[in-house]
């Protein structure tokens, strides 16, 4: 079985996982809309919560993974690490788009404003922009070696940047709700909602993994094709 066949099989698996995960999302929403109580103060608007929060989780996960892989690449210099990092960045960007659209949609009814420059929002936003730049750069640099090294450098820089942006904006007053699940005391969310939230977070993690495998496999295939085209053993 040639590497390219293996890559294709991986891509198919990725597809399967993604498909299943997306079904899961649908399921979560049935549960969210039908079986989960309507939040007292926010009303139906709160339902967006079950996609907003998990996508936030997925996006941040994606970017974090890219950052870590970038460091790893500078160490090992294996092209597959670079491909994986890029794949993770792509998924991260996709999920941040979801996050950055659901957020404001939610914000308008709740906060009465589309946007607020609060710590979490702003850091997400710029993280998103940084990785847009990352992807544009990858599109422009043709030499794979150069592309990998540039990407890694940006990835590492980005990883270090985030806490700073967060801190920066944190020194402003903040509208965005404080963590309500990941906090020392016990979760302050009605059990029903909490369960729904946690399942949807789990589901989105699978979505992330599914997309990641797919993009990674595709990157691998493109890479192998390039080598064949160049007639390299």
């Amino acid at each position, binding site marked *: 079985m040639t590497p390219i066949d293996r890559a294709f099989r991986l891509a198919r698996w990725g597809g399967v996982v993604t498909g299943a995960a997306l079904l899961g999302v649908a399921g979560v929403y049935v549960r969210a809309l039908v079986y989960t109580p309507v939040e007292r103060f926010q009303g139906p608007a709160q339902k967006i919560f079950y996609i907003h929060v998990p996508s936030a989780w997925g996006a941040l996960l994606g970017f974090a993974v890219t950052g870590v892989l970038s460091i790893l690449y500078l160490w090992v210099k294996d092209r597959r690490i670079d491909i994986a990092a890029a794949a993770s960045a792509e998924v991260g960007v996709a999920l941040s788009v979801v996050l950055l659209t659901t957020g404001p949609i939610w914000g308008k009814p709740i906060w009465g404003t589309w946007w607020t420059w609060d710590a979490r929002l702003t850091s997400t936003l710029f993280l998103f922009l*940084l990785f847009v730049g990352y992807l544009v750069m990858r599109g422009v640099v043709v030499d794979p070696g150069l592309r990998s090294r540039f990407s890694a450098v*940006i990835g590492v820089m980005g990883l*270090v940047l985030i806490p700073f942006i967060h801190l920066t*904006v944190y*020194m402003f007053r903040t509208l965005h709700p404080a963590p309500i699940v990941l906090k020392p005391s016990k979760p302050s969310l009605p059990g029903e909602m909490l369960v729904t939230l946690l399942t949807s977070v789990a589901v989105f993690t699978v979505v992330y993994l599914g997309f990641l495998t797919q993009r990674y496999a595709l990157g691998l295939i493109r890479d192998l094709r390039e080598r064949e085209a160049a007639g390299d053993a």
Partner: protein
Amino acid sequence: MVGLVRAATVIALKDLSLELRTKTAFASGLVFAVLVLAILFFSRDPTAVASRDIAPGALWVTFTFASILGLNRAFVLEHEQRAMDAILLAPIPRSAIFWGKFAGNLVFVGTIEAVSIPLFVVFYDVAVWPYLPSLLLVIALATVAFVAVGTLFSAIAVRTQYAEMMLPLLLLPFLVPPLVGGVQLTARVLDGRPLSDLGGWLRLIGGFDLAFVTLAALLFPVVLED
């Protein structure tokens, strides 16, 4: 070590002598400042907004854009006839190239800033003189941060064949902490608050400087390899 400092100085001086000959930094600092000031000035309804309230923002927007143009310049020059290759051949530590460019850019951006500040005083008649020392400290801190990152990224940008667009694309996200910090501090300083009140912001920018100057210097050689 001596070699590093010497080489870095030689490189920085070369860039600066060019700047001295052309005065572009000086001139564009001037023009930029005036334009940004004009736009922001005319864009606001004087009855609604006191100029004082947007002066710091205007100041930093000017710094940012004037600097971005300057940063690109530094490596475009090296790229034109591949002069950078000849530098790489010389028996000098590669980090010397970073420090040289970094120093050159600092002076360049510094000039732009030095030119614009008086203009703000005139336009917005904010009384800076009493607070000048603290103001300069703040500006210096913020500048170091984004010049360091800018130097690293312009070395990447120049090799993408779309340097003009690529540098801002990569650099701008990194400007948030230093700029927001710079702006906040500037505003507070102009309100006459003593630096001692501003420990938080100062520490933030200081930390940012430390982190990214180091990181940029470390990663620079990776970018040069071919």
